[in-house]
C-alpha cells in the first residue's frame, strides 16, 4: 500500500521535503554535511546499504550520520527504499550475488538495531505480532524452517526441538519440560533458552529469508520481461560502488567484500591447520579426498586466485596463469610432495588419481594439464570448513583464527597479512641488532 502511494516511478529520484525534514529532525542526526542527508528515495536506499557496509568495515563508523534510519517516522520512506533495493539487486545481480547477500544481512541487522531501541514490552509485542503474521500455527514443525536451516540463517542446534516441533511459547515449554527440570526455575530457564531471544532470532531470520526469496522472484521475473527500468539499473550500479568504496577505503574488514587480495607466491606459514596437516601427508583412508578434493583446489586458488569468493567471478586457470608455468613449477610440485608423503604414497598405488587431480584443476580427465583440454571440467573451488568437517573430519583442528572464517582460503587471506607484518617486524628487529 505504501508503495502504491508513491505513484510515478520517476518520483524516486525527486527531492522529497518530507523525507529531508524527518532526517534533519531525527534526534541525534549529524547534519553538518549535506552528504549525510538523503534527499530522495534513491538516496535513502543507498544510505541503507552504506550504513551496513560502513558499520561492518569502518573502524571510524559514526552512527550519528545514520540516526534517521532509527527514527520511527522514516517508516513510510524506508519501506519504499527497501523495495527499491530488492528490485534493483534482483534485476541486475540476482539472489546469489554479493549485493543480495549484503542487502539480506543489512535487513537483519537493521531490524536487530531497531528492536534494540524499543522497551522490553514494546519489543515483545512487536516480535509476537510479526511472528504471528509469519507463522500460521502455534505448533511449528522444524521442517517449516527448511530454507532457513539450509541457508544456515538458523542452526538446528540453536532451537529447542521436541517431537518435531520448535518450542517458542512459554506455556508450551512449561507443559513439556518443567517436570524434567531439577534444581532450577523452569520459568527462568525458558527466558534464558528461548524467551524473546529465540523468538527475535526466528523472526529476524524469517524476514531475511523472505527478503532473499523476494529478490529471487524479482530476478526470475526480470528474466522474462523485456527491459528493466533504467532507474533500477542505475541504483544497482550505485550499490556496487558503495560496497566497493567501503572496501577500498577500509581494507578487508571482517566481511571480506573486497577483491583486494592479490595473487602472489604461496606462504606456507599462513596455511590453516587443516592444510598444514595434509601437507604433512595422510594415512590411507582419507588420502584421495584430502589430496584431490581438498588440497588441490586450496593450493591452486590460494596461489592463483585468492579473491575468488569476494570477486565471485568464475575463472579458468589460464585466465590467471596463461602459460601454466605457475601450475607446473609451483602448484603441482607442492601437491605431489604432499601426495608422496602419504602412507602409502598416493600416486604410487593409485596412479589414476593424477587424472582426477587434473580434472579438479579444470583440465578434463587427462594425465597432465594442457591448455587444449581446459574447460572440459570445472576448476573446483576450495572446500568450506563445513564441508571439511563432513568429508574429512580428522583434518579439522581449529585454532583461534579459524573462529573468524568459514573457508580455509579465507583463513589464508587473513593470515597472510599477519605473517607479512610479523616478518617485517622481525626483519626490523634484526636490522636493529645489525646496527
Amino acid at each position, binding site marked *: 500500500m505504501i508503495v502504491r502511494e508513491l505513484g510515478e516511478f520517476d518520483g524516486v529520484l525527486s527531492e522529497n521535503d518530507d523525507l529531508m525534514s524527518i532526517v534533519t529532525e531525527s534526534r541525534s542526526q549529524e547534519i553538518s554535511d549535506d552528504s549525510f542527508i538523503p534527499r530522495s528515495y534513491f538516496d535513502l536506499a543507498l544510505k541503507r546499504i552504506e550504513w551496513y557496509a560502513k558499520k561492518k568495515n569502518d573502524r571510524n563508523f559514526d552512527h550519528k550520520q545514520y540516526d534517521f534510519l532509527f527514527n520511527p517516522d522514516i517508516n513510510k520512506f524506508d519501506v519504499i527504499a527497501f523495495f527499491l533495493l530488492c528490485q534493483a539487486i534482483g534485476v541486475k545481480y540476482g539472489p546469489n550475488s554479493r549485493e543480495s547477500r549484503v542487502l539480506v544481512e543489512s535487513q537483519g541487522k537493521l531490524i536487530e538495531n531497531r528492536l534494540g531501541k524499543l522497551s*522490553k514490552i514494546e519489543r515483545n509485542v512487536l516480535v509476537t505480532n510479526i511472528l504471528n503474521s509469519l507463522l500460521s500455527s502455534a505448533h511449528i*514443525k*522444524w*521442517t517449516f524452517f*527448511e530454507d532457513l*536451516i*539450509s*541457508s*544456515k540463517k538458523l*542452526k*538446528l*542446534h*540453536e*532451537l*529447542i*526441538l*521436541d*517431537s*518435531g*516441533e520448535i*518450542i517458542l511459547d512459554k506455556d508450551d515449554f512449561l507443559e*513439556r*519440560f518443567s517436570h*524434567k*527440570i*531439577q*534444581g*532450577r526455575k523452569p520459568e*527462568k*530457564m525458558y*527466558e*534464558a*533458552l528461548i*524467551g524473546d*531471544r529465540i523468538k527475535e532470532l526466528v523472526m529476524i531470520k524469517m524476514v531475511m529469508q523472505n527478503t532473499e526469496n523476494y529478490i529471487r522472484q524479482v530476478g526470475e521475473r526480470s528474466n522474462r520481461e523485456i527491459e528493466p527500468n533504467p532507474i533500477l539499473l542505475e541504483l544497482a550500479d550505485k550499490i556496487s560502488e558503495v560496497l566497493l568504496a567501503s572496501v577500498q577505503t577500509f581494507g578487508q574488514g571482517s566481511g571480506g567484500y573486497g577483491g583486494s587480495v592479490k595473487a602472489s607466491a604461496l606462504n606456507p606459514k599462513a596455511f590453516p591447520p587443516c592444510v598444514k596437516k595434509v601437507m604433512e601427508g595422510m594415512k590411507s583412508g582419507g588420502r584421495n579426498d584430502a589430496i584431490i578434493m581438498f588440497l588441490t583446489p586450496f593450493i591452486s586458488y590460494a596461489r592463483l586466485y585468492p579473491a575468488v569468493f569476494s570477486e565471485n567471478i568464475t575463472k579458468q586457470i589460464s585466465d590467471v596463469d596463461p602459460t601454466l608455468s605457475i601450475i607446473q613449477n609451483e602448484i603441482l610440485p607442492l601437491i605431489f610432495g604432499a601426495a608422496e608423503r602419504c602412507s602409502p604414497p598416493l600416486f604410487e598405488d593409485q596412479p589414476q588419481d593424477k587424472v582426477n587431480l587434473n580434472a579438479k584443476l579444470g583440465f578434463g580427465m587427462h594425465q597432465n594439464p594442457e591448455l587444449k583440454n581446459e574447460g572440459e571440467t570445472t576448476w573446483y573451488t576450495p572446500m568450506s570448513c*563445513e564441508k571439511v*568437517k*563432513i*568429508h574429512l*573430519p*580428522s583434518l*579439522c*583442528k581449529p585454532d583461534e583464527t579459524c573462529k573468524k572464517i568459514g573457508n580455509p582460503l579465507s583463513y589464508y587471506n587473513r593470515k597472510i597479512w599477519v605473517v607479512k607484518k610479523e616478518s617485517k617486524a622481525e626483519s626490523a628487529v634484526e636490522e636493529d641488532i645489525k646496527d
Partner: protein
Amino acid sequence: MVKIEYLTPASPEERKRYYREEWNIKQVPEYIIQSIQEREFGFDHVGRGPNDRYKVFRTPDLLKRFLKVRTPFAAYCSVAFYDKPRRRDRWTKAELVFDVDAKDIPVRTCECEGVCEICLNEAREIVLGIIDTLKGDLGLQNIHVVYSGRGYHIRVLDNDVMSVNTDVRSQIVKYLVGADVPENEYSLDFEKVSYEHFVIPFGYPNVFTKRVKYAILHLNENSELDEVNKKLLKDVLKHRQLIELDNWGMFKNKIGPQRYRKVIKGIASMNMSLVDAKVSIDLKRILRLPSSLHSMVSMKCTEVKNIETFDPFDDAVPKFVYER
C-alpha cells in the same frame, strides 16, 4: 568370541547356494519393493566395487530372477527416487541415511583390527541413541534399521525429510551426533545466567550430554581427543564413574572448568566420526541391498526388526557358514 574377520569371504559356490536356496524376495523390505521402479540398482559381480550400475527393475520378480541367476558378489540399491532411474535423471527425493560402521567408531573399547562382537554392539548402542533423537527431537517416525554386514544403516523415509537438501542433512547429522558444544551462558534482562549442557534435560543440550556421556564411558588411555593431553585424559578416566552416576557437576569440579571445556570440545569434534557423514549428505548414494549377501565377511545384510534385541551372530549368519 566370534570375529567376523575370521569368517572367510564367500566362494562363488556359496553365493550361488545363498541366492538359490536361502535368499527370498520377501526378505527385501517393503519400503524398497513399493518403490522398486523409482530406484537405481547397482551390482558388484567380482568383488571390485559396484561397477554394474544404472540397473532398473520394473517388478520384484525381475529383481528375484536377476539375483538368482547372477548371484552377485554384492548388491546395492539407491536411497534416491527418480522419475527416470535408468539415467539417474529427475531426482524426486532420497531417504535420509546414517551409516554407523563398527570399524570406524572413534572410541571403541575393543582392540580388534576389523570388527568384533564388542564394537558391533557399540555400533548398536550408537544407533539406539540416534534413533532416540530422530524420534524424540526431530519427530520422525518412518525409521528402518539395516544390519549392513559390518555395522548399521539407519534409513528414514518420512516425507518431511526426504526432499531436504545436502545442507539441511548436514545440520541434521551434526545435531544427532552432538558435533557442536552448546552455549553455556545466556543473557537475561540484567544478568547473565550459566547453564551447562548437563543441567538442561531437553533439546540439543540434552542430546549433547548423552553423546558426551557415551564418549567418556568408552574412552581408554590410548584415545586421542583434540587438545586433550595424556594427563587430562588420565584424569577424565579416573573420575568417569561420576559421569556414570550422572554427577556431572562433581566431575566438572574434579577436572576443573577450563579443562572440562577442553574435554567436551574434543569430544564434539570427535563425534563427527560417529557416522559416516558423507553417506548422509549424498542425495544419490547406493546402499547395500537388505537381504543381499556381504560376500567379504559372509554375513547377510539384514533388515533389523528389533534393534534392542538384534544379534548379528544369531540373525545375520547365512546357513552355508555353519556348514563349512
